[in-house]
């Protein structure tokens, strides 16, 4: 009985420490964002003496193109989330439920492409997009992220757990393959679709590398790129950067809290569990 209690306390302590490691910087950012001391980040000890203000948030909204960056981020994230959900479900369904020549070969090649580090692909991707004259445009920002192999894999795994009889019943009922996908399989795969949507949203919203490379004027920046640009343009206005960062992370937090259940389900389903 006592041993269990000690074990519990120990576990709780470790978890608390872990939480502090993750939460600490976030809480510090929140504090810095509300502080009127521009040097707080270099002198954390000053925290007691510094005054509190909303000035950083007002500055972000009024004097920076924050609204433009927000609009860009919303457009790109929305487009990529919708297309990812649709295409990964379509491809996952095809790989899981239909028979065609070369299916395993194509799927194998797709999986193999995951072995190539993303960073290596940045230059060819840039050259291609540049050839299409899409640099510094929405298509150039959106196109490369419309499909993800990981999502296709996740959806394939999910559809494989659904009985094959459903395909046959739908065929006999007169469905073509797209109707079968749209009217029978999609309505029954909400948890998997939600997982793909959340992962994609989070990934795209926070994406830094590609928007940084594919844009060259401030009005095409996304939020993460815009925030990073403050570091160079001004004398590193940390409180302003932190205010922006907090604003950027709010949507992710809200989505996570609402869809927590699906998040965990999604992780579980990638592990091959139902």
């Amino acid at each position: 009985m006592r041993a269990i209690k000690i074990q519990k306390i120990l576990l709780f302590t470790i978890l608390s420490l872990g939480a502090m490691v993750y939460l600490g910087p976030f809480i510090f950012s929140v504090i810095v964002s509300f502080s009127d001391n521009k040097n707080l980040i270099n002198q954390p000890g000053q925290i007691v003496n510094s005054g509190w203000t909303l000035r950083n948030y007002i500055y972000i909204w009024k004097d920076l193109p924050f609204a433009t960056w927000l609009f860009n981020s919303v457009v790109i994230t929305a487009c990529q989330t919708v297309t990812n959900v649709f295409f990964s479900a379509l491809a996952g369904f095809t790989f899981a439920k239909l028979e065609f020549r070369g299916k395993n070969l194509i799927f194998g090649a797709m999986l193999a492409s995951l072995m190539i580090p993303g960073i290596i692909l940045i230059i060819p991707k840039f050259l291609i997009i540049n050839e299409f004259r899409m640099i510094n445009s929405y298509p150039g920002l959106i196109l490369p992220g419309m499909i993800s192999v990981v999502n296709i894999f996740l959806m394939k795994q999910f559809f494989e757990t659904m009985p094959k009889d459903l395909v046959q019943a739908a065929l006999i009922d007169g469905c073509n393959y797209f109707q079968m996908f749209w009217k029978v399989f999609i309505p029954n795969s909400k948890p998997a679709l939600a997982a793909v949507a959340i992962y994609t949203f989070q990934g795209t919203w926070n994406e830094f590398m590609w928007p940084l490379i594919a844009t060259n004027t401030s009005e095409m920046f996304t939020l993460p790129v815009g925030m990073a640009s403050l570091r160079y343009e001004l004398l590193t206005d940390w409180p302003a950067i932190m205010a922006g960062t907090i604003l950027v992370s709010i949507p992710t937090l809200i989505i996570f809290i609402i869809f927590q259940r699906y998040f965990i389900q999604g992780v579980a389903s990638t592990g091959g569990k139902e």
Partner: protein
Amino acid sequence: MATIEIKNLQKTYPNNHYAIKGIDVSIQEGEFVVLVGPSGCGKSTLLRMIAGLEDISGGDLFFNEKLMNSVHPKDRNIAMVFQNYALYPHMTVYDNMAFGLKLKKMLKAEIYQRVTDAAETLGLTEYLDRLPKEMSGGQRQRVAIGRAIVRKPDVFLFDEPLSNLDAKLRVQMRTEIKTLHRKLKNTMVYVTHDQIEAMAMGDKIVILKDGVVHQTDSPINLFRHPKNKFVAGFIGSPAMNFVSGEIVKEEGLYFVAQGMKFSIPPPLQVSMERYLGKRVDMGFRPEYVYDKGLEKERRLSTDVEIEILVVENVGSESYNHFRLNGMDTIYSYRSSSSNAHIPGEKLTVGIDLERLHFFDVETEESIL
């Protein structure tokens, strides 16, 4: 309604595995045909080929004399009931039944009429708003049957529809499907691995093994006149007993095995002549073994001394398992429960000589 003609139908998989090796079956209009056989015999594959869910590798399939080989499943006017029900989980019972009709762009009023009629036939009227997961196995299978009925198909196909139900419900649904058949008079093709279900339901039974038809006949003919040793052993429960022995000639022909001697019944005397001095297999059903002390009227074989090993009393009758003269094989003998035996009991039995079956050892064909 439709006739189905299956001619030399074949199914080969890419790895050269033959699932169906040239099958011929002819199904009349309104007939209830059961495809039965051990697992892996190709019965479900054959059914799916009739449905159009599997490609045909060779041979022809006709519905009403029209070639169906490359017709899409939805254009064959068939309906299928699956083992796992295959109901659409997100749709209510009504929508499940109406789905196929909606895809055909049928008028709403007509759909409503058909679905409510089918629901009434199957006793589902009060469940129309429920989701499949809110229903029991038996109810779900009824919905699946309802989904088939509303299509008013030429042919109903059943793929082991009762396998997932418990024993009592299975017997009840068996009757319901037969009643439905009598009412609708459609052509129905039914797949099962359960020979009792096959015997109980089929007008005609097709026995398959290893992708080949072993016999197609009415249930009673399969029981009385099996064409070969496989059919003889497959149909009937408990299964037929087999003894290997030799044909000898004295004043007539006799089958001799393990110190037992059976005179060959007169109708078989001529055909057995060519097996003189050769080995044959003899089969007898547990139903036709009699206690010599009780049975006086039938023409029984000479005395066979047995010792009972195990008794399975199922209430109305009991199955007694025994060994013959120290042989390893266990045989069975059915007695009425009023004449129950106990393990270890020794008794003298005789086998009805009119009910003996003989099989060629090499071809396993019946000797007629």
